[in-house]
C-alpha cells in the first residue's frame, strides 16, 4: 500500500462542462422531541458539472443521507430547512412550492434512490404498475400499451429482462429489485441521480451488477450526472470522478478520486483511507487504523475544527474560531495547516 504504486487504473475524468447542480451554504436541521435543533447539514457548498460523477463518503451520522434528502427538497418533519440555496439545472428549488417541485423537478431533473430502495416497492403491485404510475403524471398522453413498450425497451437496453415488468417484487432477488428500482427511477431521464448507499445491503456479486447498471445509465446518456453516497471508499474510487468527504455535517475535503485515495490532505481523510480493506497482496501486513473517540454532538455549537478532538495532529489553535476552507486548484479542504506541513507529519508518523 505504498505511494509509489500510484498509477491510473480508472477511466479518465471527463472535461469540465456547465454546472448542473449548485449547492451554496446549505443548512438543514432536525428538531428533536425536546425541541432541540440538531444541525445535520451545516454549511455545505459544492458544484457538480454536467457529465461528472461525485461520491460522498463519511462515517455513519456525518450527514450524508440528510444531504441527499435536502438536495431533493424532501423537507418533512423532523427535518427542516434553515438557509442556503440548491440550484438544479438553473432552477432554485427552494423558491418552488411543493406541487411545483413534484411536477417540474422530481424525477425529471433529479431522481433519488433511498438506502433501502428494494423495500420501497409495494408488494401487491406488478413492476409495470410503478412505471404506469409515473407516466400517468408526467406523460399523460401515452396509452398503456405505449408505456409497456417503452418500459420493455428501456429494460432491454439496460440488460434487464423485460419479463421483470410482469413480476411482483417478492419474485425478484435483492440485487434484481435494486436494479429494477434504479431503472424505474431513471425512466424520465433525470439530469442528476442521487444514489444513497444503493449497494450496502447487497453481496459483492450483486453490487457489481448494480454498479454496471449505473455506469450503463451514464454511458447511454439516460442520466447526466450521478451523486453516489457510500462509506466504501474502494467502490467510490472506481465509480465516481470526484470524492467529497463529510464529517459532522460539513465537507472536510473534496478532490478527484485519484487525489483523495492516494494523496489525502485532511487528517480525517488520511485516517479514513487507512481503514480501506481490499484483497490485495500486502493487505495482511497492513495495519488498520481505527479512529478513536466519536464525532461531536451536533446539538451544540462547535468551536474550532470539528475533528480536533480525535485528531492526533491537533494544536491549541485548532480548538477555537472557525476553520475556513483552503482552496488549492480544484481541491478544497478544511484544515488550518498547509499540505506540506501535513505531509511531513504523515511521513513522520509512518516512521
Amino acid at each position, binding site marked *: 500500500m505504498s505511494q509509489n504504486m500510484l498509477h491510473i487504473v480508472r477511466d479518465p475524468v471527463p472535461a469540465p462542462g456547465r454546472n448542473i447542480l449548485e449547492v451554496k451554504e446549505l443548512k438543514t436541521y432536525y428538531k428533536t422531541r425536546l425541541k432541540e435543533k440538531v444541525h445535520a447539514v451545516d454549511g455545505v457548498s459544492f458544484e457538480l458539472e454536467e457529465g461528472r460523477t461525485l461520491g460522498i463518503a463519511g462515517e455513519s451520522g456525518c450527514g450524508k443521507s440528510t444531504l441527499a434528502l435536502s438536495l431533493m427538497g424532501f423537507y418533512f418533519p423532523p427535518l427542516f430547512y434553515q438557509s442556503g440555496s440548491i440550484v438544479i439545472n438553473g432552477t432554485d428549488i427552494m423558491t418552488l412550492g411543493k406541487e411545483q417541485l413534484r411536477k417540474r423537478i422530481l424525477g425529471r431533473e433529479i431522481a433519488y434512490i433511498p438506502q433501502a430502495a428494494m423495500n420501497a416497492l409495494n408488494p401487491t403491485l406488478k413492476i409495470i404498475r410503478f412505471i404506469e404510475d409515473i407516466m400517468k403524471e408526467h406523460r399523460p398522453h401515452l396509452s398503456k400499451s405505449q408505456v409497456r413498450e417503452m418500459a420493455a425497451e428501456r429494460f432491454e437496453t439496460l440488460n434487464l429482462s423485460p419479463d421483470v415488468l410482469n413480476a411482483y417484487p417478492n419474485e425478484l432477488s435483492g440485487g434484481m429489485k435494486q436494479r429494477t428500482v434504479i431503472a424505474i427511477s431513471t425512466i424520465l431521464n433525470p439530469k442528476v441521480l442521487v444514489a444513497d448507499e444503493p449497494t450496502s445491503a447487497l453481496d459483492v456479486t450483486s453490487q457489481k451488477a448494480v454498479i454496471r447498471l449505473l455506469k450503463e445509465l451514464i454511458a447511454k446518456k439516460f442520466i447526466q450526472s450521478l451523486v453516489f453516497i457510500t462509506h466504501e471508499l474502494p467502490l467510490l*474510487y472506481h465509480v465516481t470522478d470526484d470524492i467529497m468527504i463529510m464529517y459532522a455535517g460539513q465537507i472536510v475535503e473534496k478532490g478527484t478520486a485519484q487525489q483523495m485515495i492516494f494523496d489525502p490532505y485532511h487528517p480525517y481523510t488520511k485516517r*479514513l483511507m487507512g481503514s480501506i480493506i481490499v*484483497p*490485495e497482496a500486502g*493487505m495482511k501486513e497492513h495495519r*488498520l487504523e481505527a479512529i478513536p473517540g466519536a464525532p461531536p454532538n451536533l446539538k451544540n455549537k462547535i468551536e474550532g475544527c470539528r475533528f480536533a478532538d480525535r485528531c492526533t495532529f491537533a494544536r491549541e489553535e485548532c480548538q477555537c474560531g472557525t476553520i475556513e476552507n483552503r482552496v488549492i486548484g480544484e481541491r478544497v479542504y478544511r484544515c488550518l495547516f498547509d499540505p506540506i506541513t501535513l505531509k511531513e507529519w504523515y511521513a513522520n508518523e509512518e516512521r
Partner: protein
Amino acid sequence: MKNAEVLLSGSGITKVFGYGKQKKTAVQDVSFSFHEGEIISIVGESGSGKTTLAKILMGLLKETGGEILYRGKPRQLKRHKERKRYWKDIQAIFQDPFSSFNVFHMVEKLLIDCIKLQGLKLTKEEQVLRMKEACSFVNLKFEELHNKYPFELSGGQMQRLMIARIFMLHPKILIADEPTSMIDACSRSTILDMLLKLRRENNMTIIFITHDVGLAYYVSDTIYIMEKGRIVESGPAEDVILRPRHRYTRQLISDVPKIHEAWDLAQP
C-alpha cells in the same frame, strides 16, 4: 496452526430443507477441521449456505447428514442442559446488532446476565469490576453506558458491546456471522481489530462468515469458499486469495473493487 488441537471437525455435513418437490439442499457434503486459536473465514455470496452452516455449528439447526465432532466426541445437544453447556464453549455475534438486543433491558442487565450465565457468585463490586474490564476491552466507558437502552447506542457501539459479552464469557469458539456488514468502514476496522485481539489474548477460535473476500483475507488464517452449499476451495488465506484455483474464487475476488488494480465490470 496445524500443530494445534482440532477443536471442531465435521465430515460430510448436509442440510436439506423441505421434502419432495420443495426439497432444497442448503449445505451439501461439507467437511472441515477447525484448530484451536485459528481464525477461519467462510466466504460465499448470499444463498450459498454460509449462515445455515453457522447455525448447524451453533447447534441451532440439526444437520440432515454427516457428523460433527467437538474435541473428538459427538456433540450432546438433546437436552436443554446439554445445549447450555455446549453454548458455554461456543458463542456467536450476528449480522444485525439492532435485533441482537432485548430492547427492554439496559446495558448493565445484559452484562450481568453474562456473569449469571457462567454461574459465578460475585459481590456487587466484583460484578462492576468485571463489567468495567469488559467495556474497556472494547474501548467503551461503562460509566456512560450502564444505564442506557439499546436504542440509545449506535450500530458500532452495539456490535462492540456484543464483543464485550464474548470477552466476559470467553468461549472456546466464536462464530461471527457478517459482524461488520451493517456498520460503516470506520467502525469496521475497530471491530476487526477487536476480533484479532480476542484471538491473541484468549487463544479463541473464530469462525468469520462474510461475503467480502477482502475482509476474509485481512483477518483469517484459513479460508473456505462456499458455492451453492459446497466448499469449492479451501486453504491458507494467502494461497486462496493471491493464487486462487477455482473459477468461483476468482469471480468473488474480481467482484470486489480494489485500489491498485482495475475493476473489470464486464459480465462474467
